[in-house]
């Protein structure tokens, strides 16, 4: 199974994400933002955290227009899997692959700590390794993690069971406590918390491993 991790100028979680995919058994390649195509046969694309293009203009806005992002959007539109973490989530909303946008944290502070997340649905390739209602500890590290979408979009996400994770104790003002959402076909997940930073005993927690393991299991049998 093949994973590709996108690297933008300013990405800083790309290698962590690659290691998490590798430990789950994926064959991982890194793709540069100027590449215009993904490697042949990629099953899942990881869009990592960081500060692509320095967050200039808006977080994720310039990355979303990069050559590789056109290929990522085409991959998602063809029904390919994609995981966007933190800045990667911001990039996926800017491309329109996922709805909504990420605003400045309501408290205006950059927040870096482990938070409790509630698994809102186990009905996805990313969350199948959990039970709905599970509470897991996953680190956040963001300044612009305040998820916003209009009321109709939030209602649609909830009605279609597309909220993947919510914050147990909302740290950033996100609407409806939303921490991560799924695309309509449930094959793209965007989330502000970092499962790849809770994927090894050395990280102080392994609650994020299930995301990558479930993905490997399901992608491999699909």
């Amino acid at each position, binding site marked *: 199974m093949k994973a590709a991790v996108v690297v933008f100028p300013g990405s800083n979680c790309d290698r962590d994400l690659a290691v998490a995919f590798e430990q789950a058994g994926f064959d991982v390649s890194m793709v540069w933002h100027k590449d215009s195509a993904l490697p042949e046969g990629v099953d899942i694309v990881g869009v990592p955290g960081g500060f692509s293009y320095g967050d200039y203009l808006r977080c994720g806005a310039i990355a979303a227009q990069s050559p590789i992002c056109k290929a990522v959007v085409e991959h998602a539109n063809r029904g390919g899997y994609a995981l966007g973490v933190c800045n990667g989530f911001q990039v996926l909303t800017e491309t329109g692959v996922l709805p909504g946008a990420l605003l400045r944290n*309501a408290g205006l502070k950059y927040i870096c700590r482990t938070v409790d997340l509630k698994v809102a649905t186990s009905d996805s390739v990313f969350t199948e390794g959990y039970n709905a209602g599970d509470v897991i500890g996953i680190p956040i590290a963001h300044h612009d993690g305040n998820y916003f979408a209009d009321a109709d979009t939030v209602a649609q996400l909830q009605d279609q069971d597309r909220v993947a994770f919510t914050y147990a104790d909302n740290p950033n003002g996100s609407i409806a406590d939303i921490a991560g959402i799924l695309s309509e076909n449930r094959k793209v997940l965007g989330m502000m918390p970092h499962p790849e930073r809770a994927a090894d005993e050395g990280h102080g927690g392994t609650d994020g491993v299930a995301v990558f393991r479930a993905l490997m299991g399901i992608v491999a049998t699909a």
Partner: protein
Amino acid sequence: MKARVHVMLKNGVLDPQGEAVRHALGAMGFDKVEGVRQGKVIDLTLAEGSSEADVTDMCEKLLANTVIESYSIEML
């Protein structure tokens, strides 16, 4: 030729930076300030013959995120 684009968060979208400025002004004794919204001004230098429609296209595709922001264009 030049164009000036104003980008603002839409009404109803929380502007925590604007709120922080409002609090600071209040604390400084400017007690008549009832609201602050903070936005961006983007000045574009354009080749002759560019049209407002070109700038609108830029706003829709990059300069503003219309999920959360509104924009207005001044051709100067």
